[in-house]
């Protein structure tokens, strides 16, 4: 089985967000980056499938200049090789242009499975897996929490409101991973050492055979803002026999929500 896992290097979830100069995005200059947590489930799933069925796991990233470290982490987890589409315009693209770039590499690789995390922390769009599937003319299932796969078909469970949808289909396919699919392994010291010898092939956009039009974003961010600060609340302390009735009174008479 040839499995491509698309991986994004994203700001850590603990960061306090600052708006960048020009107010069109978030200031990422001083921020520590990690492999997107949802992508770790995808990498882990690929490794487990390779352990069962054999084959190779290729991790694929698209970024300006910082993503090498993230790909190296995935190689240390056990992926066989990595490809990085490196171009400044990847930093200012949208889901469509990112999907177009990733799809063009996948088209050349002809994998049996393309795996993603369900969304990237930060932009939180969750669109790229579906965009890539459409551009590759492959079926897709998103937010997978359980997966069974063999060489020709898959059975996946995905979370919907109040239930799980069982989706069955054929390979090749594009799937995105949701938390709960598996427990991602930590890179072992052995894995980290082995990763130093594995290749990260850098590709430029020119080598992908895409026109400037293919890669133009279809949406733009006009402005990024912080949420308005909440005014200080009414915090009660004292005896339960007084604070609880007072809270209920406030919710009923002031906020009018119960």
């Amino acid at each position, binding site marked *: 089985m040839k499995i491509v896992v698309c991986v994004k290097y994203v700001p850590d979830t603990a960061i306090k967000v600052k708006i960048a100069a020009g107010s069109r995005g978030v200031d990422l200059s001083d921020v520590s980056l990690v492999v997107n947590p949802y992508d770790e489930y995808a990498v882990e799933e690929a490794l487990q499938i390779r352990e069962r069925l054999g084959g190779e796991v290729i991790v694929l990233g698209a970024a300006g200049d910082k993503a090498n470290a993230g790909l190296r982490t995935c190689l240390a987890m056990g992926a066989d090789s990595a490809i990085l589409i490196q171009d400044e315009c990847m930093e200012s693209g949208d889901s469509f242009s990112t999907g177009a770039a990733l799809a063009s590499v996948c088209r050349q690789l002809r994998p049996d499975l393309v795996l993603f995390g369900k969304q990237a922390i930060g932009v939180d769009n969750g669109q790229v897996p579906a965009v890539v599937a459409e551009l590759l003319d492959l079926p897709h299932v998103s937010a997978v929490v359980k997966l069974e796969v063999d060489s020709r078909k898959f059975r996946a469970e995905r979370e919907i409101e109040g239930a799980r949808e069982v989706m069955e289909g054929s390979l090749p396919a594009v799937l995105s991973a949701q938390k709960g699919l598996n427990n991602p392994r930590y890179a072992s010291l052995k894995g980290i050492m082995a990763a130093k010898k594995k290749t990260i092939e850098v590709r430029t956009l020119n080598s992908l055979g895409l026109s400037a039009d293919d890669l133009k974003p279809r*949406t733009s961010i006009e402005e990024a803002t912080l949420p308005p600060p909440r005014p200080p609340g009414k915090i009660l302390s004292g005896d339960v026999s007084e604070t609880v009735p007072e809270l209920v009174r406030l919710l009923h008479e002031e906020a009018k929500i119960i």
Partner: protein
Amino acid sequence: MAQGILVFIEERQGSVKKASLEAVAAARRMADSLQEPVIAAYIGSQAPGAVLAHHGADRAYWVRHPLLESYSPEGYTAAVTQLVRLLQPRILLGAATAMGRDFLPRAAARLRVGLAQDCTAARLVDGAQLECVRPIYAGKAFARVRFAAAPAVATLRPNVFSLGTPDTARSAETVDFQLDLAPEQIRARCTALAASGGAKVELTEAEVVVSGGRGLKGPESFPIVRELAEALGGALGASRAAVDAGWIDHQHQVGQTGKTVSPTLYVACGISGAIQHLAGMSSSKYIVAINKDPEAPIFKVADYGIVGDLFTVVPALTQEVRKLKSQ
């Protein structure tokens, strides 16, 4: 010339999702200023109901096809994109539910246009251009998004856009749509529904959410929080600490790597208020915090709170709420 607003209607177990009606109502408000129609895109084996018209649809295109009897991203993408090609709307909307978030990006890609996912605001600017606002960094920031070409596609976060007052005097024409779809075009589809981790009221759609965190000290204390949730008619949530400790299924997790909720009322019991948790619930209309630590960060975002021991406060609160509701 692109005209009108097309709204994808999601139906589950025979009823139209409230979030889809919210999208119709939002479309109606925008269409009124454009003086253009709101058209519902409805997939189902029974005719679309009058509720679509009551919330603002002028026409409903009814797509019925044996291959659409079960959900498939490819089948639903085909239905919506063929309707777009026929009707040439300037805007395509849908609810940002699991289904909408799954296949509408595929439809947008097929149409070679962009999509703004999970929007909390949508309005017309410069006369007739759609502009949306959507949370990024799990709501720690917001992005104002514009679109390069028609149709502008957006999914709207459930529970944020007003349903408005239904006008039962409104009616809409139903038009049958012949879909061009062959079996080999569907290579993944839903074959069954299975039970989930136990959530009775879906968190992301709930009006009230009551969550428990590390302060509960163990799984055996979750019933205290569950009872308050039930008394308030709400859904049960949890912090990551409680989920990672194995006290409750991760279906209930609220936060940056869990669910993002926007209820009218969010009650946080024994939750300190880490940035990642706040990211999942900060767009709640009212936040109530119960924590024995007066310095807990959650009190900085709470509208109301009680500093106290949740093991006495929460049951007392449940009782007081029940008393109020029985009056």
